[in-house]
């Protein structure tokens, strides 16, 4: 059993399971964020964000989520080091075999996502949790919520912040494009009929999620 943490296929299994978990998280995160542009005010978003920040089950899930990110990144780095060591001397002529384009740049897009993660966490999560940048707001029902929505609107009114978000989110989209179908292949799910469906779903997922996330800062900048 211990070989599952140390062998090449075992490490890939860890990567793919953590990756699939992160794919599910991205959908949930998008579902909450998209309320910022679907509703006129930020009330729905603030209620959802406060629930996510205070609910005990979600708090446990938050730890698991950080664990998932860490697992995916650490195993990714370990596998990458192994890959670099496997070819100490490269080719003079770059390889141009017929392969899926985005799969060649998973490391590059992973670095883009890491940069995004640091910026994004500092922008909202750290400011909300530790810096006290988020004020409270009381709605008609008398309940008090964190007004995270106000901070988001404020940030996305700054042009360069929107541009940085859009560029970095495109990196995420490219990563998801290959990552989705790759996770299934690693799990051993490869079938003449179902694999094309999984690949199409992967393209749909990456396009929908990326467009969804990008639309939030862009919409706020121009229309809010």
């Amino acid at each position, binding site marked *: *059993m211990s070989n599952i943490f140390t062998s090449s296929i075992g490490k890939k299994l860890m990567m793919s399971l953590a990756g699939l978990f992160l794919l599910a998280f991205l959908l949930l995160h998008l579902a909450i964020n998209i309320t910022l542009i679907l509703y006129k005010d930020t009330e729905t978003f603030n209620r959802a964000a406060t629930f996510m920040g205070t609910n005990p089950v979600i708090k446990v899930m938050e730890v698991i989520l950080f664990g998932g990110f860490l697992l995916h990144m650490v195993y990714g780095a370990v596998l990458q080091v192994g890959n670099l060591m496997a070819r100490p001397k490269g080719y003079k*002529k770059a390889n141009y075999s017929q392969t899926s384009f985005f799969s060649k740049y998973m490391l590059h897009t992973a670095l883009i996502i890491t940069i995004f993660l640091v910026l994004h966490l500092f922008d909202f999560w750290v400011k909300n949790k530790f810096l006290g940048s988020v004020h409270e707001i009381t709605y008609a029902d008398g309940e008090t919520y964190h007004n995270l929505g106000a901070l988001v609107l404020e940030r996305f009114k700054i042009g360069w912040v929107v541009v940085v978000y859009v560029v970095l989110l495109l990196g995420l989209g490219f990563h998801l494009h290959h990552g989705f179908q790759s996770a299934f292949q690693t799990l051993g799910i490869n079938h003449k009929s179902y694999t094309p469906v999984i690949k199409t779903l992967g393209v749909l997922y990456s396009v929908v999620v990326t467009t969804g996330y990008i639309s939030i800062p862009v919409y706020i900048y121009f229309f809010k």
Partner: protein
Amino acid sequence: MSLLRYRSEIIKFKEMNFTLKIWRQENARAKGRFETYQLQDISPDCSFLEMLDILNQQLIDKFEKPVCFDHDCREGICGACGLYINGRPHGPDKGITTCQLHMRKFKDGDTIVVEPWRAKPFPVIKDLVVDRSAFDKIIQAGGFISVNTGGVPDANTIPVPRKNADIAMDAAACIGCGACVAACKNASAMLFVAAKVSQFAMLPQGQVEAKERVLKMVQKMDELGFGNCTNTGACEAECPKEISLSHIARMNREYFSATFNA
């Protein structure tokens, strides 16, 4: 014009000229460098290895050392030849070995860069020849069935579904040339190992040692320092026998099953 002369005019091919940039390395410890050679009047119907033979003859005539390269059957079944030509293992064509590549696939005046397979477990021995015994070690770790063959068994004593036999046969088409490792951006040998695991996994004879086999072969592959598969598919695109990525998925399933059902 006589008919004979007319025919000879038609079939007269246009000879081609090439600039070759070839990796030269004295021995395993030497540093190595690219040497440039000009080659004239090459027939488009010449195979790539025949073109190298012509080059070598010219080098020998000039009392220079010929270029070393691996070759054996020259009909695409032995897996001995394998050169990284202009950024692709086995050169610019699909489903072929280097010996099946013809010069008509290039344009007259082309510069052709010829390199050896590059991977830590495939060290260069001399010029374009690499040591591929790492593949033998993986096979020795578990790529076999331990039964005494005895006499020839009657046909159909062990029923095998046609579909499984076809899949096993497709996997067994692997000639172990190493193009998958050479093409992979991570120098991973997973397509090779997957093909060898698959060919037994699909047949009843392979079931007895199935669990042990996949665990030992993957362990050996990791030990030898091959990279990790990122499902890019360069191996499948360059494999001369067009072994499918689905075999890697099957190997992963076999591996998980062997690990969790131990």
